């Protein structure tokens, strides 16, 4: 009778220590997560896209990754070299300039990223006025007609083509899409993490202590969440210079409320559990009880919410950018791309690119969220 009545004996080694770093519960959750094939694949695709976008500088950049110049290896992707090194006069080298390019290629070589544009780089050799179409919609002659030597020009390479066309300032849409994806996800993630920390803490305090603490904070939250967030954002955006952190701060002011309800409910429910009473009888302090005994319960609800809050934050950022109250001008932003698409209906690649990027990103997140929800559902059975 001393052996636990377990069906998971393979989770422990001969001495009884658990194998691996996951607890049996988390192991089962991971198995449940994997059982949702769509969510599992979405997680992989999203991780690959996200990591790729973190390395955006190596994929789409207006400087080479490596340069060998007169026997010296240079790293322009990480280091700003003044142009006088190559015989020019600018403070920062413009590697796309034909003069510099010829100078370097005469004395060594350059390793370019697959796309030779960063999100601010304007293509000065567009065949006609911006926005220009993706290169595969034009024949070879028109593509490179603005280069001095036409399609014989050394600049007329695949890396200099605009794969998804340019926007109305002749900037490469592909590059802006990659950087825009990155900033959207990073913004969403940061906002979600910060709101989760604040929201969980507030919900925990309310649920655990109850009484007047709960009553006052609940009323405060009711008033707080009834404020018209969009208008407050507009007002603040008019006063403060817009930027990543300022936007994040303003949106954080209102987004933490989403977590309070579930966490508070979990704490209210669990604070009278017998194991919590047992911990009190052991003399465990309030903080420890909340953190060690109650928080794991509440985290299930919170984690289930996370992907949906994440996609919500991304959508909010996009809509602010669309309205022009988001990130500062020049930032790569999907919302701004949509706004351009709206202004330039003759250039459908703008709107379509933004639309597909956003919808694929959000779909992936929702699929991951569904799988997470399955993974944490203790009643879920599989047939």
């Amino acid at each position: 009778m001393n052996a636990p009545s377990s069906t998971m004996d393979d989770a422990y080694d001969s001495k009884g220590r658990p194998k691996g770093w996951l607890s049996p519960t988390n192991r089962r959750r991971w198995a449940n997560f994997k059982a949702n094939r769509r969510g599992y694949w979405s997680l992989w695709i999203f991780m690959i896209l996200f990591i790729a976008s973190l390395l955006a500088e190596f994929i789409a950049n207006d400087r080479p990754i490596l340069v060998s110049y007169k026997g010296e290896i240079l790293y322009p992707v990480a280091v700003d070299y003044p142009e006088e090194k190559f015989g020019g006069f600018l403070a920062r080298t413009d590697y796309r300039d034909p003069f510099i390019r010829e100078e370097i290629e005469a004395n060594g070589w350059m390793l370019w990223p697959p796309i030779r544009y960063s999100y601010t780089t304007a293509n000065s050799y567009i065949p006609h006025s911006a926005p220009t179409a993706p290169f595969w919609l034009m024949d070879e002659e028109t593509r490179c007609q603005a280069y001095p030597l036409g399609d014989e020009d050394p600049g007329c390479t695949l890396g200099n083509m605009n794969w998804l066309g340019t926007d109305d300032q002749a900037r490469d849409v592909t590059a802006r899409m990659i950087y825009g994806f990155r900033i959207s996800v990073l913004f969403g993630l940061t906002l979600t993490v910060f709101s989760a920390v604040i929201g969980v803490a507030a919900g925990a305090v309310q649920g655990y202590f109850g009484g007047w603490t709960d009553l006052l904070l609940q009323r405060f939250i009711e008033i707080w969440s009834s404020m018209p967030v969009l208008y407050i954002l507009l007002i603040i955006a008019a006063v403060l210079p817009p930027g990543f952190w300022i936007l994040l701060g303003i949106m954080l002011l209102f987004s933490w409320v989403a977590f309070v309800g579930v966490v508070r409910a979990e704490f209210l429910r669990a604070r009278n559990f017998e194991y919590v009473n047992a911990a009190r009888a052991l003399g465990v302090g309030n903080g420890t009880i909340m953190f060690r005994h109650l928080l794991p319960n509440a985290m299930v609800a919170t984690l289930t919410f996370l992907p949906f809050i994440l996609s919500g934050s991304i959508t909010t950022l996009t809509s602010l950018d669309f309205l022009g109250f988001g990130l500062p001008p020049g930032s790569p932003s999907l919302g701004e791309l949509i706004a351009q698409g709206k202004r330039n209906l003759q250039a459908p690649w703008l709107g379509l690119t933004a639309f597909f990027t956003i919808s694929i990103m959000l779909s992936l997140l929702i699929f991951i969220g569904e799988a997470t929800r399955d993974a944490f559902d203790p009643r879920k059975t599989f047939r």
Partner: protein
Amino acid sequence: MSAAAKNQEPLLSVRDLSVAFHQEGNSQLAVDRISFDIKRGETVALVGESGSGKSVSALSVLKLLPYPAASHPSGEVLFKGQDLLAAREPEIRDVRGNSVTMIFQEPMTSLNPLQTVEKQVSEILHLHQPIAADEARRQVIELLDQVGIRDPRQRLASYPHQLSGGQRQRVMIAMALANRPELLIADEPTTALDVTVQAQILELLKDLKTRHGMAMLFITHDLGIVRKFADRVCVMTKGQIVETGPTAEIFETPQHEYTKHLLSAEPKGNPPPRAETAPMVMQARDVKVWFPVKQGFLRRTVYHIKAVDGLSLDLRAGQTLGVVGESGSGKTTLGLALMRLIRSQGEIHFNKLPLHERSFKQMKPLRSSMQVVFQDPFGSLSPRMSIADIVGEGLAIHARELSAKERDREVANALEEVGLDAATRWRYPHEFSGGQRQRIAIARAMVLKPRFVMLDEPTSALDMSVQAQVVDLLRDLQARHELAYLFISHDLKVVRALANDVIVMRAGKVVEAGSADKIFDRPETDYTKALMAAAFNLEATTTGVVSE
């Protein structure tokens, strides 16, 4: 077929019934080819410990299992010759609540809290027969009267929360009887009730059975009820029926090993002898726990609910004080007050230290020497902590000087002491059975080397045979460490096996107190007598000294 031959024919015949559950790709056989018959007017008891498949068998008679997660690999359930397992949903709905009805264990949750008694009882009538509203009302009143609800006319508009547990179970029975069923399936109908109420409900069922001549399938783990109540017994373990026979025969000459084990599993042994000279551990004088009831805009205290009202007790080292009473009598509140986990008035001395002068914070250094073991072994262990963390948590607070390694050794020792394999300490609570979990909860208390342990119904959620083991363990630990126990229970058999002093509580007050021998053998008050009769002989007292 003649009428006599028809009476010989079994009403319900279960043949080769199996039930399998499928989860995450693997399937588990919960019931393995069981067969039994119920004749008209007969009571058959399915007895077994939790997890033996008795409830699942009963639910499959009416096809109430969560299909398709459950399935029947084999078998048939013949009710008056009709195979219910093969019946289609409309056909089986015609049987449910009509000729076969069911009452469940938990009276708190098996009634809809949002509807009145009248609506819920008359719904059954309307479902199975065309009946006019005033005729239905007349029948509901008659049914409520039959099941012994006083003033049934006034009770029609009551909601479930306005009824006591016993009354709710009576309403459930009224619903089950509404259409004059031929077979009543009772799934542990009295387990959630107090002993006195249990005796009343059993009396009622017996009475109704003889009056209506219905057959009954009675599912229980309580052998006392079976002995008193059933005509025939089927003993179940691990999904199989291991022995079937007339009740008297099974109890007199059990054949199967498991039946013998079950019959000998009553808590045995004697409490520690009274020691008048042992050092006093816990002494309380005139303890009161009053919860104020506030009303009106100014939240003025209108009156108090007196959970514990002026109670005194003495508890010496190595002794056990049993606190018995019905639910709601203030037993647990008393224990929590002594531990200073809730606010109370009156004097409490622990090891001669006045506890009543200390705040919650100031109690912290004393917490290691006063510990508590709760009732529910599933609720009292945090599901997300490993056993080592659960048992070691108290050490981390009260014995900070221990290194992680020393603490781990202490935890292992404590687990060995309560009879668990120390190698299992990295596992999580859900991997252990109820009895093992209760051992873990005891280890959590014992690792701190307490002097006083409050045991709040530590055995009532456990199976009979496990109960006996836990009682033995507790007695063992007490003898070894000179522990003082405050043993709170409504199960008088367990109290008798452990306590040398007993307090009988009712509505926060002491009804009777004294040595265990005196209380159990020569009770003085009517209430104590009624309690004893209900607990040991399942006899209901009609004099109104107990609640209903």
